[in-house]
């Protein structure tokens, strides 16, 4: 191998912050179902702590031997609303506590799957789970939850949309920071390794290893070398870089899967930023030629980036899955934070951007007094973009209790901090309170 290639690889890791964002082990809990809740939870604890007992050890070993940072080790489980439905418990907080305890024992960073899929309606387990979310997520540190409220095939469950606006407000009233552990989806995917939205889908194997890659810094550095070149060259450069980044994900996933004796699932081809300087999707867009993210042209530049990442990544690995696209979480991206602080990026532009990338209004702080119906309106808008365009969209907003526009809320570590953003003050309450379902969209006449 050429010296140049070795140096480039080392530079990608050490200077451009290329890393594996997460190795996530998906574990099915269907075989833990029991009509006695405490028995079910014991089975869940036992299965999790047995199945994933070597996850952290193997990840640390890969990190040491290959010199690739693996930022998070995570677990996703079958949506708890399904697993717990057979038991007679009134709420499912104890299930979240069991997940927390297992995650703590294993030393994993996060565990996802305190989830419900209610795009068309709610079974009794879904209702209990959604009602349990505020207490469950505020009393645990590692547990993540998600609720899918719409899909292209089913339409949008507006009763659930209404409910989730209220749940987010309730959770924020207890602890606003806990809201980062809750995401509301449309077209949720079953093999997503990223949090807070990871759950182990019903069509998945008993256990699986999924990998989420990172690497915005690598893409930005590569683009610096083609400054001023035509946009075709930008696309080609992103493709080539995405290829290399994804190869690393594929390789690490395979090594981990083999060591853990668990099938390898997918690589999630996402550009996942962190608040560290030089690890920002916003900075890529600015390198492409925008004075600031949020400027006219932002949606087009993001569409180009998102598409080129997929084109480059698809050939680099055997199976692509998860969310696969550029993430634009505000608090986790130093460039996004800066753009919001300078007034260059607003919610409306972010919403437009979510139509062409993964995943949605993510890690956005809004004033603490934002009404529940307004949050439901935001969820409905995002769900509509996902449902109509046949893509995953999501809302992870944080109503910052007692805070107003201009204040900020700190999440810590790779989750960063978010400036509180202004929300359109007009009320969608009458629309939201109608309830019912928005019918599934027509799949022809695509204008």
């Amino acid at each position: 191998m050429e010296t140049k290639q070795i140096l480039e690889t080392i530079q990608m890791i050490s200077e451009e912050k290329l890393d594996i964002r997460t190795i996530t082990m998906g574990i099915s809990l269907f075989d833990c179902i029991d009509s006695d809740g405490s028995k079910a939870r014991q089975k869940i604890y036992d299965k999790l702590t047995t199945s994933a007992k070597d996850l952290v050890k193997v990840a640390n070993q890969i990190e040491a031997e290959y010199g690739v940072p693996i930022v998070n080790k995570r677990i996703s489980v079958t949506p708890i609303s399904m697993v717990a439905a057979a038991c007679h418990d009134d709420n499912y907080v104890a299930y979240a506590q069991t997940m927390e305890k297992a995650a703590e024992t294993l030393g994993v960073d996060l565990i996802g799957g305190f989830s419900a899929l209610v795009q068309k309606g709610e079974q009794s387990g879904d209702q209990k789970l959604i009602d349990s979310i505020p207490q469950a997520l505020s009393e645990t540190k590692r547990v993540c939850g998600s609720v899918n409220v719409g899909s292209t095939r089913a339409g949008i469950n507006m009763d659930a949309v209404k409910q989730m606006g209220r749940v987010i407000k309730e959770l924020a009233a207890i602890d606003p920071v806990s809201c980062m552990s809750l995401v509301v989806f449309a077209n949720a995917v079953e093999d997503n390794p990223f949090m807070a939205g990871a759950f182990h889908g019903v069509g998945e194997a008993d256990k699986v290893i999924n990998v989420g890659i990172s690497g915005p810094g690598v893409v930005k550095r590569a683009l610096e070398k083609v400054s001023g070149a035509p946009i075709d060259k930008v696309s080609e450069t992103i493709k080539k870089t995405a290829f290399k980044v994804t190869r690393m994900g594929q390789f690490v996933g395979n090594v981990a899967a083999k060591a853990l004796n668990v099938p390898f699932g997918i690589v999630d081809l996402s550009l996942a930023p962190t608040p560290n300087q030089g690890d920002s999707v916003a900075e890529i867009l600015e390198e492409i030629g925008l004075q600031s993210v949020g400027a006219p042209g932002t949606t087009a530049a993001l569409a180009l980036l998102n598409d080129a990442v997929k084109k480059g990544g698809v050939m680099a690995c055997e199976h692509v899955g998860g969310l696969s696209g550029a993430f634009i979480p505000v608090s986790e991206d130093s460039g996004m934070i800066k753009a919001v602080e300078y007034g260059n990026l607003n919610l409306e532009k972010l919403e437009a951007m979510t139509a062409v990338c993964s995943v949605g209004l993510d890690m956005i702080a809004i004033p603490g007094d934002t009404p529940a119906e307004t949050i439901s309106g935001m969820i409905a808008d995002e769900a509509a973009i996902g449902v109509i365009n046949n893509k995953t969209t999501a809302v992870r907003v944080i109503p910052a209790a007692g805070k107003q526009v201009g204040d900020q809320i700190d999440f810590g570590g790779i989750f960063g901090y978010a400036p509180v953003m202004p929300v359109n003050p007009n009320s969608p309450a009458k629309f939201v309170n109608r309830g019912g379902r928005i019918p599934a969209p027509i799949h022809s006449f695509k204008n």
Partner: protein
Amino acid sequence: MKAVITVIGHDQVGIVATVSQQLAELQVNITDISQTLMHGEFTMMLMGEWDENNVKFNVVQQSLTALGQRVGLDIHIQRQELFDAIQKL
């Protein structure tokens, strides 16, 4: 076992000798060696090969890290497969 060893630091007398002597003691065969300046720093790359049944990876790694600390150099070792995965089709 094949690994890429990188040595980065201020240029000084005897870097090649010090590192290669340590590798010889560990029974690591050097199959390729090159050096260059990266951002003004001396950078040496070695391809090493050894039998993992005799010497474990972490033994080589710890030994090289300790050597690096003693002589003021940054020495990293990574298994070669990663480089092949990223750079080769």
